[in-house]
């Protein structure tokens, strides 16, 4: 497992193959689109998905917090998947983790999936940010759209890219996508799916593999 250091707006960011970014200057772990509890939403609808996926996802997330010794966890929206009830096991699991990390500052930017119940369920120990968080040089939000107050860091798109060379070989994987005025993180949740993106030649693109992150920014240029 090796992360990749990049510079964005003169700030160092470490892009991790497990689809989080660490911002050392602020000791902050950035993550987007966790979609915790998704299996419960499906299970309630009679769709039989194994329990325990969200717990695994959260274990994984806090392991990364420990890995970087992060002091703040900033979730860029869609922490939850929909209408959740308090008896869902992952909620207790989340609070167990918070109890073990009592120094950790957890901030969640509300995403479109969070609107139903997330705030109601997770009031204590968690700071909810309804729209966006401005921390120069960045503006942290869920849905990427240019913002004059700073460089936007967001999620929502679950970006993935397909590398295709001139033979028939294709390779698709989640990417960190840094455009002119905003950067989009890949989705963290295991059970979330991906959206294929079509970057511009000026964009920077970092593809995530099983154990590394690779700068493939050149790919978009060589395709033209």
């Amino acid at each position, binding site marked *: 497992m090796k992360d990749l250091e990049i510079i964005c707006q003169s700030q160092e960011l470490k892009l991790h193959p497990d689809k989080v970014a660490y911002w050392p200057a602020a000791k902050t772990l950035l993550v987007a689109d966790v979609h915790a509890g998704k*299996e419960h939403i499906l*299970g309630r609808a009679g*769709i039989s998905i194994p329990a325990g996926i969200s717990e695994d996802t959260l274990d994984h997330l806090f392991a990364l917090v420990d890995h970087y010794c992060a002091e703040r966890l900033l979730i860029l929206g869609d922490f939850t998947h929909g209408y959740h009830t308090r008896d869902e*096991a992952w909620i207790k699991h989340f609070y167990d983790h918070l109890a073990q990390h009592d120094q950790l500052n957890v901030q969640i930017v509300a995403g479109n999936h969070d609107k139903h119940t997330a705030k109601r369920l997770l009031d204590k120990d968690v700071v909810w940010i309804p729209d966006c968080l401005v921390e120069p040089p960045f503006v942290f939000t869920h849905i990427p759209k240019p913002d004059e107050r700073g460089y936007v860091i967001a999620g929502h798109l679950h970006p993935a890219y397909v590398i295709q060379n001139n*033979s028939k070989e294709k390779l698709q994987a989640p990417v960190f996508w840094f455009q002119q005025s905003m950067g989009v993180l890949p989705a963290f949740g295991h059970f979330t799916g991906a959206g294929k993106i079509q970057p511009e030649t000026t964009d920077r693109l970092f593809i995530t593999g099983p154990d590394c992150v*690779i700068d493939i920014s050149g790919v978009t240029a*060589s395709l033209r």
Partner: protein
Amino acid sequence: MPDKTKQPRRKSKSKSDCTTENDRASSLYTKTYQWFDDNNWTLFEFQQKAWDAWHQGESGLIHSPTGSGKTLAAWLGPVQHAAAENVKVSGLNVLWLTPLRALANDTCKQLQQAADKLTADTNVALRVETRTGDTSSSKRAKQKSSPPFALITTPESLSVMLSYADGGKSLSKLHTVVVDEWHELIGSKRGVQTQLCLARLKKLCPQLRIWGVSATLANLDQAMDTLIGHQADGRLIQGVIPKSVVVDSILPQDNQRFRWSGHLGVELVKQAAEVIDGASTSLVFTNTRSQAEIWFKSLLEHKPEWLDSIALHHGSLDKKLRQAIEDRLRTGDIRCVVCTSSLDLGVDFSPVDQVLQIGSPKGVARLLQRAGRSGHQPGAVSRVVCVPTHAFELVEIASVRSALEERRIESRRSPLRCHDVLSQHLVTIALGGGFEEAAMLAEVKTTYAYQSLSNDEWQWVLDFITRGGQALQGYPQYHKVVLSDATYRVKDKTIALRHRMAIGTINSDAQINVVFQRGKRLGTTEENFIARLKPGDIFQFAGKRLELRRVADMTAYVKLASGKKTGAVPRWWGTQMPISTELADSVLRTLVEWKQKTASAPELDCVGSMLELQQQWSVLPGPNDLLIELIQTREGYSMFCYPFAGRLAHEGLAMLVANRLSAKYPLTVTLQINDYGFELQCAEPIDVCEDNLKELFTADNLVEDILTSVNSGEIARRQFRDIARIAGLVFQGYPGSSKTTRQVQASSGLIFDVLEKYDSGNLLVDQARREVLEQQLEIQRLKQCLLSIKQRKWHICTPERLTPLAFPLWAESVQSQTYSSEKFQTRVERMLGTLEKAAAESLD
């Protein structure tokens, strides 16, 4: 089929020959004979046999070509019985299952007409009605309170009927089920669903007679066992000898160098239009919906004056549009309909006098069926004109003709032990009054598809429908089926509603409605096609050039496009049919005969120069050869291999070889398959000596090796789509509420990944793998292929350029699959390297 023009006069001897000695029996037939005589119809021996067998309480299968009177053979037994004086008719007596909902209304008219004739001058009135997904609820209620004599329905609607608690009561007078076009159902999961429903009906009505009507298949005995249950006795009734079929083809012009690859064939549109011009009504069959759209457009561009006399018909078009076209076909008020398998079945469109097949016919039976859609006039032969889409297809056409002449026709077999269909059926029965475990298991095991179901599998399925299986133990709120007093039932109303909506086994993906802004509905297309378009983009759909205006709530609003700009044609998801073993064998035989100069067909003369090139540059393989070509191209090193075993077996074989190759040393292989062979493309040269290759193609460890390749590939995830939907793992949403249900829609691919990781014993995942092996990759055919390859003579050639056989594989780039044992980083860097190199070259 009371079509006066169709059948010549009855031979006078048939009446005395076939009637049983029994007086009562002969009196049963009086009116029937009278009716046939009045219309100057021939009474065929098989019809008499079918009626006799029915009156003796037997079940069985009637096979006969379309338009030979098999409907009357199956239908008149019950009618003769009901029309007899001492019989009192009450309740629903006959169920008539049809594979296509669209056929129900026509069949209904036909059956009603026959019933009216035979009951004229009696005080019996036999009502025939339909019940499909389109039937209104008030009509259904009426059918419940005052049941018709016969009901025409689909397997899905029958399932829904069984899901109502009073279903058993309304079916208590049932004595006959007729399954129409059984050959269409038998090989599919809908056929399995039919088998389960029939087992249920037999339980409800022990005296039930089950009759199937089928076109010719190679395995008719098995087809009958599958229909009536593997323990029951049945009568196989052979119908009339099929009318002769003439296979013609459109040959590319002499001076025209015909393409070696491709799948559209539109360069022959001018000649096709001439052929269409030469007949009054033609059906133009294509192999895919996009091909149909493209051919429709091309024909119209070539003959703009046909605007009002040419139409397009495929499964994604709105029902009303299709209905209108079918009506015009029936009256002959149309010159040409470009269609897909959507018109393979159905009542006879008598005015059709010619059929065109664009692209490979894929199978002998399939072409026979399509050809049979024409030539219903007395004494007419069925004529089918094949239009090749690339040069090698000409060999296929010549081969299909000789296979037809020798009557080498394919078999169709029922899938076995489908857990998804069984899960769905058990919930259906639990809804319809519930079931007891032992009795239900015994009932299920009477079907052909589940005769070998193990107790473990049964327990798993029960567990799955009651507790959601292993997976759902964390969800106390999830109980589809509840066990109380030794009976399994469904108690929750929402689950009941949702289940009835989901009944059915035809796959359908998330579909977007295509609608004009004023509201007229054109049909549906797959979501990911529309997702790639922006408002203002032009695309081709329903034979029209459309401009996308906006997309909202699963609906794409469009208007007719102005200007000349052409647009994309949607591609619908669906697996391509493989060429059948029979046809592939025939192709190889044809090649040998061509070499020996014993074959003569205009198609072969036309491609003679191409076959000679193949022979010169490499080898032209016959049934006893295996040809492998190693060719270096700009993209890398390719190995082409031509077992001629059909695209499914080739996919398995290519995966197997790729996997074995990548197990030896890290490399990335890209696979491409077609019906003749496959291509493996690598960045480095492939180890070439014959011994090495033979090791890659061994049949040892076949199942283990192929499972490894299946696991590392996309293929099991693909197969899981259908399974997940049938078993109720993905929910398609209520009609009209697509937006609010988005949250509970997860793609089956994601579910597959999750189940694999968290619920390793899940039988549905297992089933996906098994289906991949058995249906997707045709493992039996693959195994036979590997064993036969071993015996064949190996030709390993290194041609300097792409041969006529290699070219179509090389040129095809959709649906290629990649296998990699390289490290992610190495692979990304290598791919970037080639891209950068290509970019640098293009700058020079």
